[in-house]
């Protein structure tokens, strides 16, 4: 096989059984890999009504065809499981080197099922796979876990693991690889913890073959040139990281501030990418096969926020910064390091603290509830401490570990939670940028920007420049971006590759690599197929049209200050057009005709 390895590794932690299976070539061609393949396998094997922490839930790691090759910024793997946070399908992907290593070991997917009696880790060296005791690793933070696993296996091993947050079933826990890269969203780390699986370590030495080496190389070189020539993909992201967006969104009036009370933060520049580069940046980093280098190696050298590691990304800098009314970059960096070290989704963590601060300001959460802690907006020390307490489930952290929706519900006011499907929405105010609100509302994994990043056309002018304030044509763009992103995710690509490359380039690379011919239309169709498969799972799991909605604050309380003052989100007006474009009925259910067209019947 070309591009794919054709093999799937299955590990049952209850029985200890380890087996290898051939992947179905038709399934590979239709669902590509990573997000697509893992979702297809998961939906075939797992009942949508399974409890996320039941041994019957499965956890699938899957690299894509690009992963391990030099397709530009194409080294990612995807994790698919049922989310304990949203109750729907969780799909989180990560860069670094873990995905390529799993591929070099010979696998298109690793299916973990059951639950180990005691803490264990997996050690995969090509064909040799062992379930090993991890009792001594339990409780360890991510960097130490990574080092200890390498010491016990191979110093070059690539390690994906959970920290205390995953062990403690924190509903916003992440899976971390190479210490600082995260499969962050949906609580995938908590599912790993529920299986008593502390880590997966891999070393691989097998080749990934290419169907048309000359054609693939030419397609890759073209992709690189397009990236290099692009102002965002070629220069902006390397110079300032994703955090460059702080000032851009603030100037648009869509930088959510103090738990979405507002859309403008006067001191935003203090936490933006330009300040980050001037104050704490050590160097730009790139994931495996990356041509963009948006990663930030950073260091806070002294003081109470001392630390080093990666980040913050824009969404973390926002959730821990303006969303909490905080403009202290060192405190944000420290919180981000803690999220990496404890294994927590940095978007949901900051946004959950922001929600708690909002409840505190409103008087629904009092000093009595917080053990005397001051949760006023702007309190940087509180942010850092609550993050640590959440990972370890200490004090108030035990409740914050449930994410903002369940936390706010405990205090009688779930409307204070800025979530869709109980997952925290990110750093673009949907009152100031209309299309991204529709993406938040309809995303299969709950509140998420990256699976349909209309910011590219609504704010950044990538390929097209739309008015962020209007709803016109936005359902079309949301669907297009969702389908294209699903296909790129399934290929193992990074979504930032679209700052330069488009559907034509991706289709050319995947075709020459795998030997299966995809037109641009075929490629988008594969993405649409994946999107509908995810949707069907969520509907079977009990989610409905009512879950395709933003928090009521965003459709009823206008932005108070800044360039988007007075704006509201108009998601309910866009939803019918979106459903119609998707070929879904008025209740948001895929019609039999569309499912037949997509080969999903």
């Amino acid at each position, binding site marked *: 096989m070309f591009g794919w390895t054709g093999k799937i590794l299955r590990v049952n932690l209850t029985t200890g059984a380890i087996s290898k299976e051939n992947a179905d070539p038709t399934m590979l061609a239709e669902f590509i890999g990573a997000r697509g393949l893992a979702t297809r396998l998961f939906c075939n094997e797992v009942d949508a009504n399974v409890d996320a922490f039941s041994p019957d839930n499965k956890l699938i790691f899957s690299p894509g065809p690009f992963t391990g090759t*030099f397709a530009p910024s194409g080294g990612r793997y995807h994790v698919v499981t049922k989310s304990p946070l949203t109750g729907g399908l969780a799909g989180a992907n990560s860069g670094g080197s873990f995905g*390529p290593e799993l591929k*070099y070991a010979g696998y298109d997917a690793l299916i973990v099922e059951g639950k180990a009696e005691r803490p264990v880790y997996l050690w995969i060296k090509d064909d040799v796979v062992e379930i090993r005791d991890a009792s001594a690793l339990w409780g360890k933070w991510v960097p130490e876990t*990574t080092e200890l696993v390498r010491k016990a296996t191979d110093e070059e091993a690539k390690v994906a693991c959970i920290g205390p947050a995953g062990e403690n079933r924190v509903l916003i826990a992440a899976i971390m690889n190479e210490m600082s890269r995260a499969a962050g969203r949906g609580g995938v780390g908590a599912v790993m913890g529920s299986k008593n699986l502390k880590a997966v370590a891999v070393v691989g*030495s097998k080749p990934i073959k290419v169907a048309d*080496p000359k054609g693939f190389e030419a397609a890759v070189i073209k992709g690189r040139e397009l990236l290099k020539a692009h102002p965002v993909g070629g220069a902006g992201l390397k110079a300032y990281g994703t955090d460059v967006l702080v000032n851009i969104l603030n100037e648009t009036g869509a930088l959510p501030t103090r738990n979405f009370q507002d859309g403008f933060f006067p001191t935003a520049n203090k936490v933006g990418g330009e300040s980050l580069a001037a104050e704490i940046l050590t160097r730009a*980093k790139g994931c495996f096969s*990356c041509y963009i280098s948006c990663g930030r190696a*950073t260091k806070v050298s002294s003081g109470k926020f001392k630390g080093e590691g990666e980040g913050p990304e824009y969404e973390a800098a926002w959730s821990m910064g303006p969303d909490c009314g905080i403009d202290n970059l060192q405190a944000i960096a420290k919180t981000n390091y803690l999220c990496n070290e404890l294994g927590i989704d940095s978007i949901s963590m900051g946004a959950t603290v922001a929600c708690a601060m909002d409840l505190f300001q409103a008087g629904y959460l009092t000093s009595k509830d917080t053990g005397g802690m001051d949760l006023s907006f702007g309190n940087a020390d509180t942010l850092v401490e609550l993050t640590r307490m959440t990972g370890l489930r200490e004090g108030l952290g035990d409740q914050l570990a449930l994410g903002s929706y369940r936390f706010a519900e405990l205090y009688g006011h779930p409307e204070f939670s800025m979530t869709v499907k109980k997952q925290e929405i990110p750093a673009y105010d949907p009152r100031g940028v209309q299309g991204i609100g529709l993406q938040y509302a309809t995303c299969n994994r709950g509140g998420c920007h990256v699976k349909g990043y209309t910011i590219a056309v609504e704010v950044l002018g990538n390929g097209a420049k739309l008015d962020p304030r209007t709803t016109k044509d936005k359902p079309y763009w949301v669907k297009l971006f969702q389908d294209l992103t699903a296909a790129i995710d399934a290929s193992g690509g990074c979504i930032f590759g679209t700052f330069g490359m488009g559907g034509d380039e991706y289709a050319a690379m995947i075709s020459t690599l795998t030997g299966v011919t995809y037109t641009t239309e075929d490629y988008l169709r594969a993405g649409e197929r994946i999107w509908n498969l995810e949707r069907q799972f969520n509907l079977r799991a009990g989610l409905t049209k009512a879950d395709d909605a933003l928090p009521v604050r965003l459709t009823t309380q206008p932005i108070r200050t800044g360039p988007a003052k007075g704006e509201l989100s108009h998601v309910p007006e866009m939803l019918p057009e979106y459903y119609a474009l998707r070929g879904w009925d008025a209740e948001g259910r895929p019609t039999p005709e569309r499912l037949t067209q997509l080969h999903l019947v």
Partner: protein
Amino acid sequence: MSRVLMIHPDKCTGCHNCSLACGFAHEGQFRPTATRIHVYTWDQEGFSVPLMCQQCDDASCANVCPTNALHRVKGQALVEYDRTKCIGCRMCVIACPFGSAAYDALTESILKCDTCAGDPACVRACPTAAIEFVDDSVATRGRKKAFATKLKAVFEEG
């Protein structure tokens, strides 16, 4: 005068495009153990260094090679490998102080940088110019100048 591969670790992002290009240039596929260049990364500190054969003037690998399979090409910076003369004794692997000669069991041969016949794939693939293929006489010119610039700034301030 010859050209040498010059590494700038300060520019390296740890992306492995060099090692991917190296393996692909030699085999037309992606096999991690087929690469002649290796990137070492310290995850927590975010530091990466690419390493490959330095084509030493007094090359231990060539000195120790009993069959002259590894030998210097006269008048050039390249230490060349002749697969037909190699007996697979791995003495070069032991002798190289940089670990830049490796034995590959799959192809039963020694893997070391051959500078891709004068057009190194790693250099073309590097997105940040952390590896350059330059004349040995000017290889360090940039660094000297950068350091001299610092001195200039210091004296100007004084």
